[in-house]
């Protein structure tokens, strides 16, 4: 599948803000065998004083900007062309759940893709007893790690209501879970907490959904904004699988990945001083369109 992607992020400040250093994680990354970035361009308005690109620990593309002082508004435009392949996941080759720990112990690698990074609690995903209990309940019948991912994801989708007004970017997962509502970020981080409580390494994925569904399929929730889903490690043979709890489906060619992290904090699209100043409004819009040919 070949996509044309457009992202616009706009911030307006009621009071001018000082010079700020920002990190942007908005560009899709290359993923061998799954996703190829043909072209990616980012423009900032106003023009930054400094700009540097680097890859973070997890291999995500990061743009570091230093912006001039006295801004009253700020705008980023990203355009990209991406080739995304669909993955076939008809066969469950994942480890039996009780054996997953042993398989994990055989991995002695700490590279960016190592499952070891994604088992311990992380800044936005502490252990939450209610989520642990929920995970145990809803994966009772799961024989394999992959089945546990699927059952958990569906169970979560059943009890949670998608509600863009209910939570903020820093709402604790325990609060979102108690309210049984939230957006893709909440769905994903709760599911990650649940998977980790079962001993399944789970990562946070940020990215985009195609704006218009293929003919004959319903429009997916979250397609008009940046999206997030879950990546779970299911054993040496099956490796990573991706599940979108907001839409209760395994991830396919309708998803385009920006990056991976332990939770939202590792993949936040904009990190920097803007978050520290109150009284601002922000909007963003996404357009992910399939290209012919």
């Amino acid at each position, binding site marked *: 599948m070949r996509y044309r992607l457009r992202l616009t992020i706009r911030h307006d400040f009621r009071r001018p803000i000082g010079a*700020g*250093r920002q*990190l942007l994680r908005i560009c899709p990354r290359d993923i061998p065998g799954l996703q190829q970035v043909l072209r990616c361009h980012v423009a900032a308005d106003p023009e930054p004083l*400094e700009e*540097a690109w*680097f890859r*973070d*620990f*997890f291999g995500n593309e990061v743009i*570091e900007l*230093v912006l001039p002082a006295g801004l009253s508004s700020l705008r980023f435009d990203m355009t990209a062309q991406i080739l995304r392949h669909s993955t076939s996941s008809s066969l469950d080759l994942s480890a039996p759940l009780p054996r997953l720990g042993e398989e994990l112990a055989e*991995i*002695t*690698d*700490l*590279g960016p893709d*190592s499952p*070891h*990074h994604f*088992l*311990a609690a992380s*800044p936005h995903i502490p252990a939450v007893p209610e989520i642990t209990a929920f995970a145990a309940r809803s994966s009772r019948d799961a024989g394999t790690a992959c089945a546990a991912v699927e059952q958990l994801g569906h169970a979560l989708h059943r009890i949670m209501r998608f509600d863009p007004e209910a939570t903020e970017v820093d709402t604790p997962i325990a609060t979102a879970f108690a309210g049984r509502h939230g957006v893709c970020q909440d769905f994903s981080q709760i599911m990650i907490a649940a998977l980790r409580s079962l001993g399944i390494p789970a990562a946070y994925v940020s990215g985009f959904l195609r704006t218009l569904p293929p003919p004959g399929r319903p429009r997916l929730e979250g397609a008009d904004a940046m999206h997030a889903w879950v990546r779970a490690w299911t054993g040496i043979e099956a490796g990573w699988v991706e599940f979108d709890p907001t839409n209760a489906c395994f991830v396919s060619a309708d998803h385009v990945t920006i990056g991976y992290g332990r939770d939202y*904090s590792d993949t936040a699209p904009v*990190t*920097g*001083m803007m*978050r520290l100043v109150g009284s601002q409004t922000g909007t963003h819009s996404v357009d992910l369109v399939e290209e012919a040919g």
Partner: protein
Amino acid sequence: MTGDGAAQMTGAGAGLDGYRPLPGVPDELLDVAGRVRPIWTSLAGHLGSLSPSELAGHLARADRYLRDSGVFYRQYGGVQPSDRPWPFSHVPVLLDQQDWSAISAALVQRADLLEAVMADLYGPNRLVASGRLPPALVAGNPGWLRPMVGIRPRSGHHLHFLAFELGRGPDGKWWVLADRTQAPSGAGYALENRVATARAFSGLFAQENVHRLAGFFRDFRDALLAGRQDRDSRVAILTPGPLNETYFEHAYIARYLGFTLVQGEDLNVSEGRLMVRTVAGMRPVEVLWRRLDGGYADPLELDATSRIGTPGMVAALRAGSLTMVNALGSGVLEARAMMAFLPKLAPHLLGAPLAMPNIATWWCGDATARSAVLAAPERMILGDALDTGMPMDQRSDAIRAATMSTAELARRLQPQGAGLVAQEAVTLSTTPTLVAGRLMPRPMTLRVFLARTATGWTVMPGGFARIGATPDPAAIAMQMGGSAADVWVVSPDPVPAVSMVTAYGAAQRRPSPSALPARAADNLFWLGRYVERSEGIVRLLRAYHTRLAEAGAASAPLLAAMTPLFDRNGVKPGQGVPQALLDSLEAAISSAGQVRDRFSPDAWSALDDVNRSARRMALRVAPGDDSARALSALLRKLAGISGLVHENMYRFVGWRFLSIGRLHERAMGISTALAVLADPDAPEGSLDLAIELGDSVLTHRRRYNATASRDSVIDLLALDPLNPRALRHQIDGLRDQIDMLPAANEHGALSPLAREVLRLHAELATADPAQMTTEQLWSVQMRIGELSDLLTTAYFI
């Protein structure tokens, strides 16, 4: 404890009568047969030879030193953290040279091992890949900072300053109890302990061959200076700020080594370089000795919740323009579970076993380790694998394995094993300490410091001993009532005298004056203002209460005329010591607290003393004569501060800002007083009051030999350049100081601040007393007020 030791002295001498080591526990002073060990003979004899009152006198000397230097320790746990006197144990711990050489060599080896492990964890990660370290121990460790992986330290080394916590076991051998690799504290306190101990036992210290500490600091200072590539860049010490429990030490070390003390907000990263915001603009910092946990250093790439970091710090490290002491991420080595693996890593990485063992540690993620724990639970303390505390520290996570049944223990170990370590319950040796004037054995641990120099690791010959409050080793932490003692490494031969002066040339260049961080300049300016403001308020109040006491109701119109003067500082004169004065003193203390590295200890204790006195007086002084006398006493103390500051502070940029603050505040005070009291409509007695407020009663009498007239008052208090209280004198001072500030006069172009102060000067220099109207005085007063804004714009933001 400071202050208490001397007071509680009872009974006869502090000899060895009655000193009995605890059964089965080795003692530093007495050997197993109960004989005094040779190196302790002189000290034991000295203590035994002193009468109780002599001993009390000796100890009081040390206590006085610590109190006068303002050494304090911030205690947590109450409703609010509070500053406590330094918990000082007067009797030093003595170690002989031979023992010390072995300790030093072993710790240098351990430091090399830790460097090698760190280089691997932030580099190729072969230790995990080859199965020598469990991946969970690294990946789940909050001290392992992923953004630092792959960033090679510019200096070639990750670790530059380390501390090790040691204890002596039952067999007399030393053990490492904890590795301190993050940002170890205590080296500055060790210095203060040394000075205090040397005061208490001055004669003895002089004749014993005790290794000196200064050489260690000198070598480390020179190594840090040599870490710069650009000679004009700076070495700075990064502190979390005055609320940190060891801030005193940060300020002390910065002052001792001559480095700039900065906080995260003083720093900025620009084009890949770390810069400090100084009064002369942005200046590069190439070496940063951090005294905060690595995660807090950069809210952008590390802990996003940090309010004490600098966005872009990691970017500067990535760009290779900064040496961080220690490299960010060094905290990963402190996790106790690492000690289960270091003994096996030593032969692998260094080709030799550890010369000094660490405390026996089992990581329970490993089946063999679990069996070992189950086999001997009575010896084990269980705790979090990634915690950094010592096993004897009373932490909520520590459990004695023996308190659980075997089945319970096995259940606990099986699923949660990877998160747990077992460590052997330790017995610590005891050392003599004075308890109510008698020597008693108390458990102790030793903190030893290592610093990297051009020629390798150097070990501080001495250190910091922590002494338990009770015979229970668990009560050794200072937060638990433990205390700290000096450590003397005693040589059989005379030791060389050392000083801080560098042996070789290049490194000793003084940092240029513009190293003053803008925040420090701001605080010094306000310190000057608040001290002067306090003095001004006291003068006003004294004049008020004297008149109230002498003339009562007759003075009512004059007292009412003073209202605008009081209002300016929010003072309600009805109270004996008004709240506004206490606030002003508190603000002075707070500003001084921000710049303790630049502020002499004597001036600090004088300021503290004034503040305390004012608070005491506030509780019991009645308005009128009583008040007037109390205020006179306060005024003398305040004058003392000015003296200490102005006589003793080096004439650097910092001193200028302090002086500018004082001159500015005084100019505000005197111009307001003249505008109000020299007004033609001011009530009877106003002119005399103005002269009194200007502390110029005698001068006026001598110069004019007449009763005060408006002209004589304006002449003496506004225009006379020779009267140190006159407005003109303040403006001249401001002009002189401002001229010397950075960028005040660049290629003949005056800064707006310099221009404005010059205008004011010219106006006063050419004024005629008879022509000086009240309106003009108010206008001058307002323009002086605006100087503060110009100064702020130019230097503080």
